[in-house]
């Protein structure tokens, strides 16, 4: 079994290659089904392969595929342990559903097959990332998912905005990757290897706190880039230019959570760098509330989800930062369910509204598309943290752990709580704006119920969003035990013991959730005019949020523009005139010298004679001077 573990990556990859070459002949929907089948198969395979872990018996095992860069101890090896297994299941599971959804969503697109090629390639890359047995291979997947995100965001490349967004995503990610690379340099130089086993085993003996912190923070930089944390989150909202299934799969469920995964994976290093962990948590908390506020005021249905994703990722960072790794992973999983569901639902809505994304032009859709409506409703409740939805358990565990950690973290706990409030508010706002109230559709738009093929994944995800939380309910902590072997020897933060404390905290977050949701209902059930007045009333704050604090403009003004200036200066102000000028100058100097000397050759014999005599005198004088 374990020897064929590579099939998990291999199947989607194979499908991708196949589709790349024969896809256009398969056409739709066949190529879509092929892709879905591939990833589905690897889900099944992963499930079977993961069975041993459920009874906690099996050991983690690594499989060496082949040497990659021996000089730096980098090889392609798969590590199969509960954590990677869990991630694999999430990726393949959610992935399969989204694939299926996409078959009908992408219906009619001229580059249908290409889309599934890229989607499968992404799946393969993501699996490479989570199955990697060493940092080098992890980085391989890390970058490949970035590539696929680039390809898929820019899938509709004829839209300049899409192309720009794709480039932005990749470049911003690259900024993080620089940090990541430097981290790897440090790791290799300290350990002489990049394999997880080797590194984590010897970390305590090898690493000084200083180095550990350095590595950890650099990893954080990388993670912040990939997982859209402050200040590198700006690419994610733009990434919504991609087709909605892409947003669901890459920019909600899987890729963006890679950062969380890496930090959890590197727990052994963070263990030695508490300061770094605190930083992670703080970054997470800030991101969470920052993005939540922005999400409040968005009109674009997908932008709301995008910022909520950023915010939720902030939660996960808060979790892993407060070393509640399991909680982080847990939330990662549940979030994958309900956020994927939300995106797919939004996709269905957009599909139905003929690519209308402005929520002000929606409303009253519940009657038209009940399945979508209800499933999205469930997801909204889930994300709002209303029990017994999945989101409740995971989010609550995060907050509880942060609270339990105490000190600075209790402040972060408060932020988290406030964010919870905001979250439920803007999510409910969205749901209400889209599905309730009177239709505000622009004329000609005739919403139709989502095709069945779209509906099925929605329902499945809805179910998961409801019961997904039960894998790690308090006091049973199935997931906790499942992941124990991964984090053994590492102090993992747990929620407070004792039912009382738990109830208090849970109560708090539930209250927050309900309050937010209630407020949203109250506000947005009323006719448009009134809630528009409400939003007006919150100016200018509301406007600032709507414009996402103008961060893009700030970056543009502070980084991009000056950078371009600098480049132009060095190209046309330094390179051409100075450096090249010097080269040509030297050449010109000799030619000029020649022209200067030419008159010496006057053509007059008597001048020649004078020159000759002068030469003679010099020669003789020199000889005498040297010889006597």
């Amino acid at each position, binding site marked *: 079994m374990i020897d064929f573990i590579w099939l998990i990556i291999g199947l989607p990859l194979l499908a991708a290659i196949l589709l790349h070459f024969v896809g256009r002949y398969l056409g739709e929907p066949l190529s879509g089904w092929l892709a879905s089948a591939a990833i589905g198969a690897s889900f099944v395979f992963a499930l079977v392969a993961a069975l041993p872990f459920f009874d906690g018996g099996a050991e983690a095992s690594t499989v060496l595929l082949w040497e990659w860069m021996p000089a730096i101890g980098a090889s392609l090896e798969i590590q199969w342990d509960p954590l990677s297994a869990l991630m694999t299941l999430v990726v393949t599971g959610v992935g399969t559903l989204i694939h299926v959804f996409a078959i009908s969503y992408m219906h009619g697109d001229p580059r249908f097959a290409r889309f599934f090629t890229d989607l499968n390639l992404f799946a393969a890359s993501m699996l490479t990332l989570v199955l990697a047995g060493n940092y080098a291979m992890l980085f391989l997947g890390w970058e490949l998912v970035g590539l696929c995100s680039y390809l898929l965001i820019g899938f509709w490349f004829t839209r300049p905005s899409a192309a720009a967004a794709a480039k932005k995503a990749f470049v911003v990610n690259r900024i993080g990757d620089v940090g990541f690379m430097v981290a790897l340099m440090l790791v290799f130089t300290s350990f002489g290897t990049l394999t997880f086993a080797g590194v984590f085993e010897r970390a305590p003996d090898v690493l000084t706190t200083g180095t550990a912190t350095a590595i950890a923070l650099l990893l954080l930089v990388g993670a912040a880039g990939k997982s859209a944390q402050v200040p590198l989150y700006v690419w994610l909202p733009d990434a919504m230019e991609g087709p909605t299934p892409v947003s669901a799969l890459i920019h909600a469920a899987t890729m963006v959570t890679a950062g969380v995964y890496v930090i959890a994976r590197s727990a052994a290093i963070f263990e030695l760098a508490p300061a770094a962990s605190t930083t992670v948590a703080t970054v997470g908390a800030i991101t969470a509330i920052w993005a939540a506020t922005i999400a409040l005021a968005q009109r674009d249905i997908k932008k709301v989800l995008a910022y909520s994703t950023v915010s939720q990722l902030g939660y996960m960072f808060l979790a892993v930062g407060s070393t509640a790794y399991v909680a982080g992973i847990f939330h990662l999983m549940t979030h994958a369910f309900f956020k994927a569901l939300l995106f797919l639902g939004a996709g269905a809505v957009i599909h139905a509204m003929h690519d209308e994304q402005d929520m002000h032009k929606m409303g009253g859709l519940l009657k038209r598309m009940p399945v979508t409506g209800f499933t999205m409703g469930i997801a909204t409740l889930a994300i709002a943290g209303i029990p017994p939805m999945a989101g409740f358990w995971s989010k609550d565990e995060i907050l509880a752990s942060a609270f339990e950690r105490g000190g600075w973290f209790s402040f972060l706990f408060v932020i988290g709580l406030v964010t919870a409030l905001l979250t439920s508010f803007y999510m409910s706002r969205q749901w209400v704006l889209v599905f309730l109230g009177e239709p505000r559709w622009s004329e000609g738009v005739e919403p139709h119920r989502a095709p069945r093929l779209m509906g099925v994944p929605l329902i499945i995800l809805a179910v998961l969003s409801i019961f997904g939380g039960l894998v790690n309910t308090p006091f049973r902590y199935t997931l906790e035990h499942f992941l124990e072997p991964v984090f053994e020897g590492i102090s993992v933060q747990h929620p407070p013991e004792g039912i009382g404390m738990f109830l208090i905290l849970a109560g708090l977050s539930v209250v927050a959730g309900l309050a937010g949701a209630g407020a949203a209902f109250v506000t947005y059930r009323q006719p448009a005019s009134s809630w528009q007045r409400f939003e007006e009333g919150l100016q200018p704050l509301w406007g600032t949020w709507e414009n996402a604090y103008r961060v893009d403009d700030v970056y543009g003004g502070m980084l991009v523009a000056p950078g371009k200036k600098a480049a132009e200066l060095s190209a046309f102000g330094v390179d051409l005139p100075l450096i090249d000028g010097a080269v040509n100058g030297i050449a010109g100097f000799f030619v000029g010298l020649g022209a200067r000397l030419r008159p010496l050759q*006057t053509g007059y014999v*008597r*001048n020649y004679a*004078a020159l000759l*005599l002068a030469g003679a*005198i010099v020669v*003789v*004088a020199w000889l005498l001077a040297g010889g*006597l």
Partner: protein
Amino acid sequence: MVESLVFVLMAIAAVAGAVTVVVARNPVYSAIGLLGTLFAVAVLYVLQLAHFVAAVQIIVYAGAVLTLFLFVIMLIGVDKDETREENLPYQRKAVIALGSAIILVAAGLALFTDFQWVPAASEALIPESTNGTIEAIAEPLFTTWVVAFQATALLLTIAAAGAIALAHYRKRDI
């Protein structure tokens, strides 16, 4: 005693002639000056027992060469005064500079070094050894120097052929 007197006179004559060659505005005068120098130098030869060479000097130079010079001067009619003003830029300055430079070098040699004209001079002069009679010259000329003597033939051939090639216009060529 006598030798010294003659030497002084002839040295002056030679230099005077040379100066004439350079400064005379009329080529004819220059030629006459050259003639004077040649004669004076010939006498200096005689003073040093180079009788044969002196004779050749008079015959070949004064006789043939100089006549040729005058002949050409007349032929191409440049026997008229030339202006003295210098129309080449810097030439005059150059001449002055170079002249003084040479004098400086010479003065330096004479004053600051134990300059000897003939460091290899033998202490005792043996007049017979350099008594330039015809026999004395002929003997090395036709033994040691014979090949050089032959080479002079080439020289004269070239002179002849060259003169023809340059100056002799056959009817066809004109």
